[in-house]
């Protein structure tokens, strides 16, 4: 769907009538009060609980979204949009430029988390949804839902922010910079002006490999791979993928390039690095939550070192200081940051109880 209006951006530029791709599941009720927005992570997309058209894989958050799950199409009208800057149908660097029809490439404006949220709000305007029952997201999705409460304090009743942070740390930025440099060092990147299907696949794969390590935990890697060899007879005394972990990472990198655009990766990692919710509120994170009356549920995982519990606690302290109703729990999981996508005990019951309490209190 194309928005009828331009979306103003934090950079001062405008995105002219951008395309927004989204999936909707369930029925909007008569008083339009049962909408839940799900915000996806860096390399996620709108296929939260429906089969991915390119990979044929099931939705990326089936564990959370579906019949009998905490976010349930029987009760909720579930919307998930592809973020602007993305590459699954929303306006991004691979989309045709409205002027010449060629891909935007690096002509695409640099966007922020707040810009993504502004575009989502404009889509909801078009769908006639003035208020969200809940905004739910993990990782970058968690940043978007926190931004929702700050940017549109009257439009969201409940916020679920999982495995996330209110700002990108130096370490977070550092890992992203490694990924971006890998992409830009690939000669096929061509200053961002590569043709569709002929992009910097090797650079993008390396970026994904480096990032993928940050989504796992050392204990999880040790348990899953240890030092086991790919071919159990012997080392090659060369540079093939001797270790299973090497082979696994190479596979992750190679399969990623089939579904993701390298320039999108640059733009979205940039948006993450620029994210600091306190910065735009006088350096006081609590000030970002001064106007909203939403209830908050913040969840972290003990083995997540990408967005560790200390970052969630910072969010929680700001919410407490702002006088908001907040629930916070650190769940145990061996899976690192990826725990929010996986079968983590307690995650569904916590989210379900939180959402149902909000519905009961209406």
């Amino acid at each position: 769907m194309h928005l009828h209006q331009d979306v103003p951006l934090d950079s001062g530029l405008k995105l002219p009538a951008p395309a927004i791709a989204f999936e909707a599941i369930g029925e909007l009720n008569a008083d339009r009060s049962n909408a839940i927005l799900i915000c996806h992570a860096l390399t996620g997309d709108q296929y939260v609980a429906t089969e991915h058209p390119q990979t044929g894989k099931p939705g990326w958050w089936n564990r959370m979204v579906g019949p009998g799950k905490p976010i349930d199409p029987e009760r909720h009208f579930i919307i998930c949009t592809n973020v602007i800057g993305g590459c699954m149908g929303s306006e991004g660097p691979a989309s045709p430029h409205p002027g010449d029809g060629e891909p935007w490439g690096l002509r695409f404006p640099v966007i922020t988390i707040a810009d993504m949220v502004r575009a989502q709000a404009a889509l909801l305007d078009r769908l006639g949804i003035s208020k969200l029952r809940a905004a739910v997201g993990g990782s970058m999705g968690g940043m978007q839902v926190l931004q929702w409460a700050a940017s549109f304090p009257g439009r969201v009743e409940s916020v679920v922010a999982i495995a996330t942070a209110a700002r990108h740390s130096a370490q977070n930025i550092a890992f992203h910079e490694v990924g971006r440099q890998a992409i830009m060092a690939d000669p096929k990147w061509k200053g961002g002006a590569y043709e569709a299907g002929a992009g910097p696949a090797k650079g993008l794969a390396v970026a994904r490999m480096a990032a993928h390590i940050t989504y796992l935990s050392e204990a999880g890697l040790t348990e899953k791979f240890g030092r086991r060899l790919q071919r159990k007879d012997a080392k090659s005394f060369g540079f093939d993928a001797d270790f299973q972990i090497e082979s696994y990472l190479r596979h992750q990198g190679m399969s990623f390039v089939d579904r993701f655009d390298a320039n999108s990766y640059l733009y979205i990692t940039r948006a993450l690095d620029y994210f600091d919710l306190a910065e735009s509120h006088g350096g006081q994170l609590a000030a970002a939550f001064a106007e909203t009356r939403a209830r908050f549920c913040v969840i972290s995982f003990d083995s997540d070192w990408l967005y560790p519990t200390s970052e969630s606690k910072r969010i929680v302290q700001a919410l407490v200081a702002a006088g908001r109703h907040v629930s916070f729990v650190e769940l145990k999981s061996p899976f690192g940051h990826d725990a929010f996508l996986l079968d983590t005990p307690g995650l569904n019951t916590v989210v379900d109880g939180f959402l149902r309490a909000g519905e009961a209190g209406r």
Partner: protein
Amino acid sequence: MNRLSIRLQQVASQVEPGASVLDVGCSDGRLLAYLRDAKQVDGRGIEIDSRRVAAAVAQGLSVVQGDATRDLAAFPDQSVDYAILSETLQAMDRPAHVLSELVRIGRQAIVAFPNFGYWRVRASLLLKGRMPMTRTLPVSWHETENIHFCTIDDFRMLAAQMGLRIEREAYLDEERRVRVWPNLRADHAMFLLSDQRPDLIGAKHHEQ
């Protein structure tokens, strides 16, 4: 609606309907759930144990995982009607600090704790020479979470030193109310407190 122990009932009975409450060390949220359902109380809680927090949040309660010694600092001054510390005082690293935080955050504080001056405790030490294990205190000394026991008289003295006024007090011996000689005869005490030094609230906050 869940059934409360007699001790939690005693705490709950102090809370006015519709009030706001912070329950420090709220466990799985049983008191908060009761107050919400029976008295329409606007409740929040803090609890250190992850599984108990998850159980509380799953009931729809606003409970944050955290450590009372450190994490109460974020709560604004006089932001709830009652700050409650029930069966938790004796497990705190710094009980006096937590008590000062309770009267800073709550307009009133409710503190309930087992009385170490109870005659069975005294008898156990006097006659057996062993750390007491009673119905109220069933865990052996090396396994108990309770590191700062006090008697009712000890608590009253601390409250006086801190300039806190005891608005109400109630004592139990198991299920029965105790009115005479509580420091000897009660195994459990509950105090409703208020800070008599509102001018010092800000100063105390800055000390941390």
